[in-house]
Each structure stands twice: as structure tokens, then as C-alpha cells.
């Protein structure tokens, strides 16, 4: 079976199943399912501008965090901390953008991106060290680091990084030089999306075409076999997965600031780092499929806005439908596995 196509088909089937359930619920709630879904599609794909400016813009942070999670999970590193790494990256990027006394985009952009990646990696390094040195499970540590990052962000935007007027809990707007240029004229789609695609392709090439990627997959499949049959230590590979994953998640945070919001504030992310887990799992941890699943989630989110605006569906419903999608995906995914795995061996 074509391994890249499978997740795409899975996503489609899950979506269809969800839409059926959602339609029934919407009808019960007094909304016309047809009008609601038309609004959803219009919101996500209605015009080129909506697709680029809404769907893809919303997909960008999910794409980057989804890639971060996919890479880590591939190495059996259960990084639940993309949310915190995202905040760390955003803070570092903003700090460098505001404090750096240089105004050439050619210098500022690489410097801020590097700072964000480094901060994300640093945030992941703590759980990495605890796992490799002390054997502390990363599920707990990465999760706890999220809270630390979110509180740190709150503190910084109320204090050291607060806008000079000191009125609102947010940073100043970042200088023009630090903002990501538009990817397409007259859209809000910024360079960050392209960067996400580039990282996706790079990760895919790395995982499937290089010895290092093979080692990473091997550690993910069986650390013991990697050591005995592959004759290499799992530790450095685990570190690499942690740091790279953290760096990509860190980029996600700064790219959101540099491409969309242009300043940092409390509650920058509505939980992208967690949604990313669904994005990555739905893509079966394949980086190229993550591009697709991130766009699906972005479309759902953008369409959700239109469902409110045009069909009067409350926000809670929109979130409920998103949750339905994830459930449906897991169900469909599982049943496919059962269907495909009927055989046995002698």
C-alpha cells in the first residue's frame, strides 16, 4: 500500500464520517447543515485569498509544531512540549528583534530565526537531559516545561518585555525589519509557510534518504535493536530528535509573531502545540503528510470562523466539530489497521 497516500485517504474518510455526525447534531441544534458546511467550505476555500490568507495562515503554526512532534515521535521521543518550545521561541525572537541594534532584514531575519530555534531547542534540552541522564520520562517533563514557558511569557510581557507605555500586557510591535515578508502579494500568507514546507521536505529527505534518518527511525522502532544490530548508541539520536524538534517548535512561535501578530502577548497560542500531536499522528508521522493534515486542520479552523459569521453557529460548536474530527480519525485509522493486518505467520 502506498504509505503516503494512506494517511491522506484516512483523513478524508474521517472527515466524511465526522461531517455526517456533525450534520445530524447541527440539524438537532436548529441549524441547516447544508448552510453550515457551505459556510465552512467558503471560509476555508471560498476564494484564493481565503485559502491563502486564512487557511494557510492558520495552518502554518500547526504545520511547524506538527513537524516538530512528528520528528520527535518518530524517534520515540514523546515530546508533548511543543507548546512550551513555541513560547520560548517566540520570546527569544521578539527579544532579539526588539533589542538588536541592527535594521537590515538580511541580518535581523536570520538572527531572530536562529534565536527562536535555539530557544526552542534549549527548552527541549531540559527534558532531554533529564531523560538521557536520569531516566525521567519526557511526557511529564515536556508537559511541565509548557507551563513554565507560558508563565515566563506572562511575566515577560508584563515586565521586562512590556511595551514602553506599560499599559497593556504585550510587547511593543517588532520593527519592520523583523517581520516576515508576504509570500504572495496582497495576501496575508507570509514566508513562514514556505519555510514550513521546506522543513517538511528536508525532514522527509532526512528520514528516508540519509543514514542519520535511518538511525533515528531505528531508535524509534527499537532502541535495543539499534544498539545491538545497528551498533550505535540511542542516546545521541534521542538528543538530536529532542533538540531538532524543539528548534522547529521554537520557530513556529516566532514565525507566528513575525508573520502575523507582530507582537508578543499572553495567550499567543490557543494550544497549537497540543493540536500538533493530532496533526502529526493523523499524518502517521510522515513529514510530507503533515503538510496535508496541517492544512486540513487550518481549513477546519478557518472554516469554523465562517461557520460563526455566516451561519451563526456558536464557537463552542465549532470546537466540538474539531474534536469530532480527531475522534473520527482515530477510529477510522484503527479500523483500517485491523482490515489491513488480518494475516499472520507460521
Amino acid at each position, binding site marked *: 500500500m502506498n504509505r503516503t497516500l494512506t494517511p491522506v485517504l484516512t483523513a478524508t474518510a474521517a472527515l466524511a464520517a465526522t461531517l455526517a455526525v456533525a450534520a445530524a447534531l447541527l440539524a438537532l441544534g436548529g441549524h441547516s447543515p447544508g448552510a453550515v458546511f457551505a459556510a465552512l467550505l467558503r471560509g476555508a476555500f471560498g476564494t484564493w485569498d481565503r485559502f491563502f490568507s486564512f487557511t494557510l495562515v492558520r495552518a502554518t503554526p500547526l504545520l511547524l509544531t506538527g513537524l516538530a512532534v512528528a520528528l520527535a515521535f518518530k524517534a520515540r521521543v514523546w515530546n508533548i512540549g511543543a507548546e512550551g518550545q513555541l513560547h520560548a521561541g517566540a520570546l527569544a525572537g521578539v527579544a532579539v528583534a526588539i533589542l538588536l541594534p541592527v535594521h537590515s532584514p538580511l541580518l535581523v531575519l536570520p538572527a531572530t530565526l536562529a534565536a527562536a530555534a535555539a530557544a526552542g531547542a534549549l527548552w527541549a534540552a531540559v527534558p532531554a537531559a533529564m531523560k538521557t541522564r536520569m531516566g525521567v520520562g519526557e511526557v511529564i517533563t515536556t508537559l511541565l516545561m509548557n507551563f513554565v514557558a507560558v508563565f515566563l511569557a506572562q511575566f515577560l510581557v508584563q515586565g521586562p518585555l512590556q511595551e514602553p507605555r506599560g499599559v497593556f500586557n504585550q510587547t511593543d510591535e517588532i520593527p519592520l525589519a523583523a517581520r516576515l515578508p508576504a509570500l504572495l502579494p496582497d495576501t496575508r500568507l507570509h514566508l513562514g509557510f514556505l519555510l514550513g514546507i521546506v522543513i517538511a521536505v528536508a525532514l522527509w529527505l532526512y528520514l528516508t*534518504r*540519509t*543514514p542519520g*534518518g*535511518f*538511525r533515528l*527511525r*531505528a531508535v524509534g*522502532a*527499537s532502541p*535495543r*535493536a539499534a*544498539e*545491538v*544490530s*545497528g*551498533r*550505535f548508541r540511542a542516546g545521541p539520536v534521542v538528543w538530536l530528535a529532542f533538540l531538532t524538534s524543539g528548534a522547529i517548535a521554537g520557530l513556529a512561535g516566532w514565525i507566528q509573531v513575525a508573520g502575523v501578530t507582530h507582537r508578543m502577548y499572553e495567550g499567543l497560542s490557543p494550544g497549537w502545540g497540543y493540536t500538533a500531536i493530532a496533526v502529526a499522528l493523523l499524518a502517521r508521522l510522515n513529514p510530507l503528510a503533515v503538510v496535508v493534515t496541517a492544512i486540513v486542520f487550518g481549513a477546519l479552523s478557518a472554516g469554523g470562523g465562517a461557520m460563526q459569521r455566516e451561519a451563526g453557529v456558536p464557537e463552542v460548536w465549532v470546537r466540538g466539530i474539531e474534536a469530532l474530527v480527531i475522534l473520527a480519525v482515530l477510529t477510522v485509522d484503527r479500523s483500517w489497521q485491523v482490515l489491513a493486518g488480518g*494475516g*499472520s*505467520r*507460521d
Partner: protein
Amino acid sequence: MTAAARLRGVTRRFGAVTALGEVDFELAPGEIHGLLGENGAGKTTLARILAGLLAPDAGGVEIGGRSVALRSAREARALGVAMVHQHFSLVPRFTGLENIALFNAGAWTGRGTEAPDYRALVRARARELKLEVELDAPVAGLGVGERQRIEVLKALMSETGVLLLDEPTAVLAPREVEGLFAVLRRVAEAGTGIVLVAHKLDEVLAVADRVTVLRRGRRVLTEEAGKVTAAGLAEAMVGEPVGRPGREHPPGRGPRGLEPEPVATLEGVTVRSGGTPLLRDVDLAVRPGEILGIAGVDGNGQRTLAAVLAGIRTPDKGTATLPREVGWIPQDRGEEGLVNDFTIIENVAFALHGKAAYRRGPWFDWAGVEETAGSLMREMDVRAESPETTAGTLSGGNQQRVVAGREFLRSAEMLVAESPTRGLDVKATVAVRARIAGLATTPSAGAREHQTTRRPPAAPKRPPGIVLISADLDEILELSHRIAVMVRGRLIPVPRDRHTRTAIGELMLGAQQGGGPR
């Protein structure tokens, strides 16, 4: 007399492959019935159908004279059918007692007010069966033989009319095999019918009352054990006359004259885990072209020795001088030798990912790896659809061939082989043993053949030294030039004039007289 179990015209297919075709099989109460066949002949499929793990596509199953349609192992269990699997189904972190209790949960969760002391119950049953078991240590730390005894006890805790054992002797030392057979005879005498799936013809003939041979899913022979010979059975299994394995490379045919420089030496190597010494003051030299056989009861430090020789375990004391690359066929191919979710290509890549010859700039030369995997499959006679087949779908024997082939391939100056023919059929055993013997006598290491065209040669100038670790004394005696026995972490050399089954067996037994391998 009512059969303990009976199959009538049972057919089972996996996709296009017919694993079992219209097979009739009868197990009488109180008999030990040897079930023989090559890899893929359908032995395990037959056992799994009896155990309720697989449903037949056609045909009928009878247990205790009643026709049944088993839908789960639980149903089979309720009818008194128990199976001891080739890969044990024990929870590693649980103790033996906990594993036994878990499996027999109905008896244990205190339904009924008598609330028996389950430990006492298990102890009593073990005494009855004369099974020596360690009940209170996590099974993860136990040797294969000990784990198997727990499996057997677990299966026999409740009323059992049919006991299925899949390759139970593959991992045992001779003494342990004898112990197991003694247990099986006692169990059979009590009326339980036993199906013994096995490869080793001599062993089966020694214990079985009747034997059935399967070939490619068909039953080709059922006969009383007294009326067949090992050669006759081998022929029935393969479908043509075969030479018995071994004896072509008699012991003592090592390199003569000046002893060459060793490829690896261990001096005073000690390895501890926590406070427990796993290896004690081991001295060892492996010379090119020789096969050093290491015998011993499982769990006496062989695993640790292999890890040290392969370079993934650093000695706590002493020095290990090792070649740059060491081939290692690990004992546990499912966990260590292979990644089941990986394709054959990817599993072969484990030996090649660090080699410059398989790299194109930053890229891994997957085409080259695939080519190498293809020729490996041909040479080792790996039966699979293609190199893209995932390892987990291969039969045990084919898996072992992939592992062995890969380790031969690793341009090794030294090869460590742990039970390399475990789970292999007669043909494959012959092939692997011949390959090991061949490696030792000529410098044409397996890797060279693959290096002729594509790869710049990194050919070893001399044949590799081979360390053969096996609990199978026959294998050790057949192949080794020198022999040592591992006893509680110590390595005891066996002088050449004592290279006999009895002498080595005594040394191995000595270990157990001294309080066991724990």
C-alpha cells in the same frame, strides 16, 4: 478411545498462501505427539488452530470428542487446551508467581471463600511436576530455561487435556531438555495429550510416542516413533534425501603451526550490574580462522560476554582489545536482531549505515542496500516476496537467516554467534553451520562477495575469528576448534582431549550443582 483433540480436513490460508491444506490430525490422551516440518510447513498454524488463536477456513476441530468452533484462546483454555509459545508470553516486570496468577486469573481473584494461598497452590503443583521454578523474581531477569518452566507451570495450573509446545527445546541446554522431557512424560502419564512442535529429530524421537510430519501445509506422515528413523523423517520433511548436519567439520581442525595474532583479546574482564558480577575475570583470545565454542547453561553470563565482544558493553575491570567491526548474531532476534516493522532492506541496512561505500554525498545509497539485501536473500535462501517485505511477517527461520546473513556481511574480523541455528529447520541449519565453518577456513568473508563490483575493498586480510555461543552441545562439538564453558560468569577452557558430550556436560552441570545459575 476418544481423542484428546482431532482436526478433520482443516485448511487455513493466508492471502494466496495455503498454510494448511486439508490436514487430518489426531492427538490421543496421554500421548506425546511430535509435530515436525520445515519452516513454513504449517506446524505453528496447526498448533494455533488447536489453541483457538486462528480459525480454520475449512474443516472441523474436536476437543475431547466434541466438535467445537473456537473463537479465542480463552475458549480453548476453558476446554482444557494450553499452549506454550516459542516466544514466551510472560509480563517481564511481573514475578513468576504473578505471571502464573495473571494467566489463571479466575482461580486467583478470590471467587469462593476458601481464598487459597495461591503461592502454596503453585508450589504444590510445581513439586508434583518436579518443576524447579523461581517464583519471586521478575521474569525479565531469568534465563530462557527458567522462563520456560514458568510457562509450562502456568499452562498446567488448571485441568489440561491438551498441551501444545512450540519449539520448546530450541533454547535449552541438554540437561534442561532432559528435565523438560521428564516433566512432559509425567504430564502425559496423567492423561494429557501433548503436541510437541520441534526441529531436532533425535530429541523428538527420544520422547515422542508418535510423530507427524508436515510439508508445505500437507500432512505427509504419521507414524509411531519406534518405527521411523531420523533420516527417514528428514527425508519426509524435505521431500528428498538430505545429509545430516555437521560432521563435515570435525573438531580439532584448527589452524596449525604458529598461532597467528588474535583478532580479539579479553584480559581479566569483569562486568557488574548493580552489585552482581555478570562476568568474572574472563581471559579470552580469539584467533583468525578458528571457531571458539562457548557452551553453558543459559544465563551464566553468555549474553554479557557477547555484548563485550561486540563492543557495546564496556568492562568494569580488565581490558578488551577488539577489532573495528564485529559481526554479532544476537540470541533474541525479535527484540535485538531485527526490527519487525522494518523491511528486509532496512534490517540489512543495520550493517551498512555507517559505511562510506553505501553513501552518496549526504544520502544513504538505498539502491545499493537493496541490491545487497537481494543477494543476501538469494545466498541465505530467505523466502520472502521481495526485499521490501517487512521482517515481522517472515517465519522465524527466515528471520534468523536475514540476521545471520547480515552479520556475515558486516565486513567482520570477528563473528559472535549466539545460538545461530535456534529455530532453524534441518536445511537451514546445515546451511548456516556450513557457512560458519566456511567463514573460518577461508578469508572470503561474506562481505567480500558484495564488495567485488560496487564497493572499494575493505577486505579482511585473514579469515575471521568466530565465537560460537550456544546451549546446543551438538552444535558446539560439531563446529568448534576450541571449547570453553561459561559457569556463573567464569570462562573455563576445555582441553582438547575432553571435547566430548559427557565431559562438557559435566562442566555445565557443575555450575548447577554449585547452587544454580542465579
